[in-house]
């Protein structure tokens, strides 16, 4: 039923999602529809559940012991918590970039080629093509094209984060989840990553968790405000920031807490 209703311009639809770590509930009755090829920002004070929510979308929470979830998350019309869902396929479709850049201690080339290799691309020319394209998309190609064989650990923090974005792009996802991708970067690198996000939304659905309200206001089309595990308000970014409907949202964006 919902499958039919699933509108073509929605990438993700979440219905009555509850999430528990052991006995403590982390998310309460979340309902949200995330539009395709736009940037959706998740904001809220630390511990509000925004990162937990993000990680339910590619089932990264599965690797933690003793977590439980009910409700439904549809990605492209498929229930991702259905027992028939293949997690590998899901995670290929829904890529993720972490808060702290996590390049593997391999060469720049091997970092980007890691995903395609695992998924069966063997030919070197094909891999080279994917690597070049991904690095170009993440705006890193010009900076690293002469040292693809150098260790990725030698890159600067901002470059490492863009490398991780390239690595995620190399498996051709449709959706990119970003967990505070710029929080550990200096202002110049932050600008670069933000510009990149603006670039990428032409082709990808992007969901970004951020602490930084200016960043949310600048970069996103929609913003969801989380507080104590609940989705308090969800609206177009311009509306939410200029005309919040909820008192809690207003308090948060005007800096009264958080």
């Amino acid at each position: 039923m919902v499958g039919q209703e699933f509108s073509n311009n929605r990438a993700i639809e979440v219905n009555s999602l509850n999430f528990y770590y052991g006995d403590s509930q982390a998310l309460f009755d979340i309902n949200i529809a995330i539009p395709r090829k736009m940037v959706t920002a998740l904001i809220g004070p630390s511990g509000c559940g925004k990162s937990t929510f993000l990680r339910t979308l590619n089932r990264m929470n599965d690797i933690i012991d003793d977590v439980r979830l009910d409700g439904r998350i549809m990605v492209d019309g498929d229930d991702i918590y259905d027992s028939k869902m293949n997690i590998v396929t899901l995670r290929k479709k829904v890529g993720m970039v972490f808060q702290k850049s996590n390049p593997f201690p391999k060469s720049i080339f091997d970092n980007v080629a890691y995903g395609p290799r695992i998924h069966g691309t063997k030919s070197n020319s094909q891999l080279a093509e994917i690597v070049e394209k991904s690095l170009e998309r993440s705006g890193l190609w010009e900076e690293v094209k002469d040292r693809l064989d150098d260790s990725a650990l030698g890159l600067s923090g901002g470059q490492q984060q863009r490398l991780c974005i390239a690595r995620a792009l190399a498996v051709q996802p449709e959706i990119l989840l970003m967990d505070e991708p710029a929080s550990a970067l200096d202002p110049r690198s932050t600008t670069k990553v933000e510009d990149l996000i603006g670039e990428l939304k032409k082709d990808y659905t992007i969901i970004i968790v951020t602490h930084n309200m200016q960043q949310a206001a600048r970069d996103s089309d929609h913003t969801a405000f989380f507080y104590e595990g609940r989705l308090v308000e969800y609206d177009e970014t311009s509306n939410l920031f200029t005309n919040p409907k909820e008192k809690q949202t207003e308090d948060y964006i005007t800096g009264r807490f958080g």
Partner: protein
Amino acid sequence: MTHNLTEKLVISGLRFATYAIVIVIGYILFDIIWHGLPVLDWRFLTEMPRRGGAEGGIFPAIVGTIYLIAGTIIIALPFGVGSAIYLSEYASRNRLTETIRLAIITLAGVPSIVFGLFGLGLFVLYFNFGPSILAGSITLACMVLPTIIVTSEEALRAVPKSFREGSLALGTTKWQAIRTNVLPYSFGGIITGAILGIGRAAGETAPILLTVAAFFLPRLPKSIFDQVMALPYHLYILATQHPDTSKVLPLQYGTALVLLILVLGLSLGAIITRSHFRRKYRW
């Protein structure tokens, strides 16, 4: 003034205790090297023993020990690394995991002679392997298993969590993530553990006493069901069971030195491996 004096006295006392141990260790090493070195030559290492070990070399004991430690590590390494992978990557906090941990701790504390009894009862008699390389290697493998598990688990845990998450987020299966992005970076630590395990197996006497070691056997083994001589047991025999122990004293020192070089060499190897891999992978 007096206060300061007590302070100094106490600290000197602590220092004295520490360096007393250092001096004793140094003296033991010095004594064995000093008396053992003149005996060490090519013939001592490569000749068969003669006249019940009173003359000749220790070649079959060296070969026997090498066979034993090779057998031990072939058996213990896969199980040790497999256990470590389970404990660090898969185990959730449940009763099975707790029982496994308790078993490992207990196993680590079982006296080596009890391993000997166990090996005798199970492998030599029940499985009817007889005293053999096979029975001895499995017994030693059971003994070194905890060492290998503990060091390998440490090595696996030292790999940052973000490597696993990074892989999984790219759509790898759990095993693919472990195989391509965890195991390669814990290799150094696992090898270190393996070397430590081998070192322990090489020096042990009690477990092989009842399961494999031959008193005097001046030929090389042909199969894993043969008995062998082994360095630690050979030293024990020469030092205590030989009719004329004082006459074979140089041979005892020589054997002790070879054993010491083997075991300490392995420990040193472990230390070097560890620091090499620590330098190679820094994150």
